[in-house]
């Protein structure tokens, strides 16, 4: 469904990504892991259309994403859950979700979608009228995911959902993401720093290090490969 081919991106004068290729087949759960500064967020931003690439292609269901405006993604069915949540702090929880449902597809299925979101995250129903800026980190993350679901997407992209969250809260978030994949059959691309938590639920993983894909495979393959640990903790040799 989502095909990234030979993507190279320069960001702020630095070579952030070099010849990166990955694919997310329909219905699959794919994870991208890597240490800090590897370029994970840059990849996310490039797919989102915020950062233009130097070379390479990105296609979604046959559409060339690079030829589209950034705001078109949501209308095509790509939902973003950005790094750091980025909820609309001055809007209420309910209004945040309504904004998620901005595209036509979202509005058409609004009642069913809202139900589904409230089932997954009951706290969002409880706090519907509360200002999003006053929620805790975990609650904001749930809101951000709910917002992503609100447009009835075909692909859900999440950027480091566990960042800044306590381990138990992060665990719960990963559980929910898993649940969404299992029960709704939604295609998911997860970008994460926490390797095991991310990989164990996904079908396929890629490891990014300093702008290159250095490993890819099923989660069993990756978890047993010591190169992952060495890549994170700087023990790889030239």
């Amino acid at each position: 469904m989502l095909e990234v081919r030979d993507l190279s991106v320069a960001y702020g004068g630095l070579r952030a990504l070099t010849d990166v290729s990955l694919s997310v087949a329909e219905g699959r759960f794919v994870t991208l892991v890597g240490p800090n500064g590897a370029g994970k967020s840059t990849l996310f931003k490039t797919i989102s259309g915020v950062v233009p690439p130097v070379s390479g292609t990105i296609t979604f269901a046959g559409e060339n994403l690079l030829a589209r405006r950034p705001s078109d993604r949501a209308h095509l069915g790509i939902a973003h859950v950005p790094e750091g949540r980025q909820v609309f702090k001055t809007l209420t929880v309910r209004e945040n979700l309504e904004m998620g449902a901005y595209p036509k597809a979202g509005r058409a299925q609004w009642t069913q979608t809202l139900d589904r979101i409230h089932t997954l995250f009951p706290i969002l129903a409880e706090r519907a009228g509360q200002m999003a800026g006053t929620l805790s980190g975990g609650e904001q993350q749930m809101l951000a995911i709910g917002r992503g679901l609100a447009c009835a997407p075909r692909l859900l992209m999440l950027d480091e959902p566990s960042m800044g969250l306590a381990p138990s809260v992060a665990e719960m978030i990963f559980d929910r993401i898993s649940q969404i994949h299992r029960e709704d059959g939604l295609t998911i691309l997860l970008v994460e720093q926490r390797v095991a938590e991310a990989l164990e639920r996904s079908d396929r993983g890629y490891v990014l290090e300093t702008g290159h894909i250095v490993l890819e495979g099923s989660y069993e393959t990756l978890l047993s490969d010591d190169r992952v640990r060495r890549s994170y903790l700087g023990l790889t040799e030239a």
Partner: protein
Amino acid sequence: MDLEILVENVLNAVTAGITIGCIYGLMCIGLGLIFGVMRIVNFAQGELLMLGMFASFYLVTGGKALAFLGPYWGPFVGAICAAPIVFVGGALLHKFLLSRVSGLRTAGTLDEGHFGQLIVTLGISLILQNGGQIVFGSTPVAVRTPLSAEAFLIGPVYGGATVFLNKAKLIAFVVAILVAVVLYMTLEYTRLGKALRASADNPTAATYMGIEVDRAYRVAFGLGAAITAVAGGLMATYISFGPFVGFDYVIIMYSGVVLGGMGSILGAFWGGLTVGFVQQFSALILPPQLQNAAIFVVFLMIVLLRPQGLFGRSAERA
């Protein structure tokens, strides 16, 4: 001073403060949308006010388009009709000029594009003021309504003290409140309004939602321009004006918006109301030329002592 006269003066100042203050409040909402929400520093806001005045003037008296409504309804309907005209003008200004120095293009730069905005809007201000002088001439005009000479009398309260409620100002006040309420409802409850607020809150996230932020900003700018223009049209019923009138009100607008707090539209209204109050009360003790100087002093004090205003978040301080 005779207590009765004092009471009368104070009561009249209070009523004038409320009525004029609410009109100022409406004027400030327009700037609040642009400055507080979009973070665009618009130096030409006073000229948008001026355009609203002249639009109303030509609709009502010049072109006689609204003459059929007569001198009682005409001026106020004219003020409201100025809105779509200035909305379009404002949107065009944004599309061709301001979008180049604001929004996503300049988000994240060291000064968020403010330098460019100040310069471009200074240029727009110069063109509108002086161009206005060419097109409209410099003889002061007003949108005549007999209501500006009539007043309701309340009283006598407290001895012989009577409160005069100028009819024109009163109706303008009512219209101002109505427009403000309509705007508030639009922003709070409609999909468009929420999209505008979301774009102001977090343009990147708004883009992720599928909102075209540039277009949202354009609409917001046009709306802010239109609101200020309506306030101008209302003011036109009780003051006479020329192409340079906008300038007197720029500092009043900025004082109101800063006092109410950046980012808060409701705050802008209260800020404008407060400034109106200060102005009318200062009329009790200060001669007319110094009233405006008093506003400047108030502005400087707010900016130096409490830049976050009454309702807003923190501002840029060294």
